[in-house]
């Protein structure tokens, strides 16, 4: 059969994959659909709050979904990295309280940046160690992976209690980030604006890395078909370890941001948020960064609108959204081979 194919066809470039844009339209659709039910200033406030929460969720979820795509490892202990990140930040934030309370945005952001860097460094190292000790012996065995990463989460949470004590720690926002700015009548909390900005920076940086660099090409190819990348002579395990450490560092960043958002730290804050992160990943489609981004925003926006309109419904809004999405696309918004 193949001999009869015209030669020209073999030389022609592969047809570009068609972009699947329907999920992209979901976020604006949800945002617009909420408008008629509330006043305009409320809508602005809720939308910004939803975007901020969505960005934080995305930061925590993106590493996890990439790791799953690469090696089909789902780390149930990811939430522990979130907690560890938040608690590590207190090493910087509590002794340098004076800088946090100073009335200068620069000093505030400086000390915050230092805390974030430390948190990310610690969680990256922790992620690397976690991969070595906990995950490496159980590649390819899903049952054991789930059990052992849950165990890793228990141990990490307890270690947090051992190191930082079992009491919750108050973590006040820096002076310059407290309060709200007014756009017309709509109040927008300053910290939420910062969260949106940080989230956008992470998202763009991740897109650039994935789409414009060689390592990004390898990661994308690995998520698409790991065996093929391996067969071409690349050690996918090394890529994986890198992505795992980077994902853990992002969880640490997310933890610091989430801790400041909540203004109190408890050891199980990570395992609470990880449930939402899982819902995000299921909605987005396992292994898809784009789906993860859309999923995070959807979950957070719906939770915020529902929390305002019908507080009791908001408790199950994420499950309802997950069910709705899975009815539409049983494997999540984006799956392998669909972009």
């Amino acid at each position: 059969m193949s001999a009869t194919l015209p030669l020209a066809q073999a030389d022609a470039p592969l047809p570009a994959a068609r972009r699947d844009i329907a999920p992209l339209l979901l976020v604006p659709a949800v945002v617009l659909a909420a408008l008629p039910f509330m006043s305009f200033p409320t809508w602005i406030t809720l939308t910004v709050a939803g975007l901020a929460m969505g960005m934080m969720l995305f930061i925590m979820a993106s590493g996890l979904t990439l790791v799953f795509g690469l090696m089909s490892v789902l780390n149930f202990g990811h939430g522990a990295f979130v907690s560890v990140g938040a608690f590590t930040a207190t090493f910087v934030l509590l002794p340098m309280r004076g800088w946090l309370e100073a009335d200068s945005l620069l000093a505030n952001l400086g000390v915050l940046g230092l805390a974030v860097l430390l948190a990310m460094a610690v969680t990256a190292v922790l992620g690397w160690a976690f991969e070595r000790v906990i995950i490496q012996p159980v590649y390819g065995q899903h049952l054991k992976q789930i059990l052992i990463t849950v165990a890793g989460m228990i141990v990490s949470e307890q270690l947090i209690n051992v190191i930082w004590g079992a009491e919750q720690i108050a973590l006040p926002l820096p002076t310059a980030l407290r309060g709200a700015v007014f756009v017309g009548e709509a109040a927008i909390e300053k910290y939420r604006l910062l969260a949106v900005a940080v989230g956008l920076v992470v998202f763009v940086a991740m897109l650039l890395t994935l789409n414009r660099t060689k390592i990004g090409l390898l990661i994308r190819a690995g998520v698409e078909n790991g065996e093929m990348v391996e067969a071409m002579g690349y050690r996918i395990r090394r890529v994986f370890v890198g992505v795992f450490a980077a994902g853990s560092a992002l969880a640490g960043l997310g933890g610091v941001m989430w801790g400041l958002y909540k203004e109190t730290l408890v050891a199980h804050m990570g395992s609470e948020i990880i449930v939402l992160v899982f819902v995000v990943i299921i909605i987005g489609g396992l292994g898809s960064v784009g789906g993860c981004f859309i999923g995070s925003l959807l979950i957070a926006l719906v939770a915020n609108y529902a929390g305002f309109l019908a507080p009791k419904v908001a408790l199950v809004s994420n499950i309802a959204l997950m069910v709705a999405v899975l009815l539409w696309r049983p494997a999540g918004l984006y799956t392998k081979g669909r972009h």
Partner: protein
Amino acid sequence: MLIRLFSGDLPRSRLLSVILVAIVLGLLFAPFLFSGARPLNTAATICIYIVLVASYDLLLGYTGIVSFAHTMFYGIGAYGVGIALASRDEPTWGAIVIGLAAALALTVVLAFIIGLFALRVRAIFYAMITLAVASSFAVLASQLSDFTGGEDGRTFGVPELLSPGFTLVDHDVFGRAVDGKLITYYLVFAGSLALFLFLLRLVNSPFGRVLQAIRENEFRAEALGYRTVVYRIWANVLGAVVAALAGALMALWLRYVGPKTSLDFEVMTDILLIVVVGGMGTMYGAVVGATLFILAQNYLKMLMGQASEMVSGVPLLAAALHPDRWMLWLGVLFILSIYFFPIGIVGKLRLRRAAR
């Protein structure tokens, strides 16, 4: 007769048989062997946990399904009985039956829907979805405080026969008053025994064999003509129903329901740990594991407290040995047993026997 009762699935190891007989006798005579409320409470908790863990083993060990929603069904059973009793002025058996029936109906419907939705997909997907559903349910239960009592939970009375003030006969029997607490204990014991034997019957039936086939190789089981999704949904529903019944027994025993005792994620991790340490895919693992775990939970903490005081000068070590940190050591044990001891205590004992 005995073989029939055990559904032909005997312990298959002399040491294991001895341990099991000791545990059953210990539980049977617990009210007479020990005095005080605490040992009896420990014994009742062991009975209920054996059922809870065995019903989870039906999913994890026999079918290879990882669910994080098991405590949700346990909680539904507990809350069903608890809310029904708390809403009446006079606690009656009728209220228990109605509450239990409602709880079981909800359990069957939820387990069926979750199974239908999620069991077609891979193990990891199912684990994630059940985790999300269960935690939403726990949040719901603690928020609907008019109905469930919120974080505080609800205390309630039980029918007169089971209440502590009731005495059946005036004089003591073997040095123990025959009061409502004793009757409740034997209700819990008998109920747990019946449920355990039912589960044993189930896993040794042709149905149970199909479940094991699915665990070993789902593709092959499907190719043999078994509709694996149907079997997995059935396993899910049956496991959930037994968990709900265990929850109902727990509610009757404690005369209290609350999120901490039934819906908390910590209960779920306890179950996981017991199944793994006891031995996955062996119903007897639940008996040995639950007994060890509950005994450790109740008595090891005291030892840890003493050890912590002894090293109180050493900063981190003292904190690590604090009784509240006992989950730390259990977590380490959990990891080690998955690596070095994946077949659990019962698996190991049976292997030793087989090697001879």
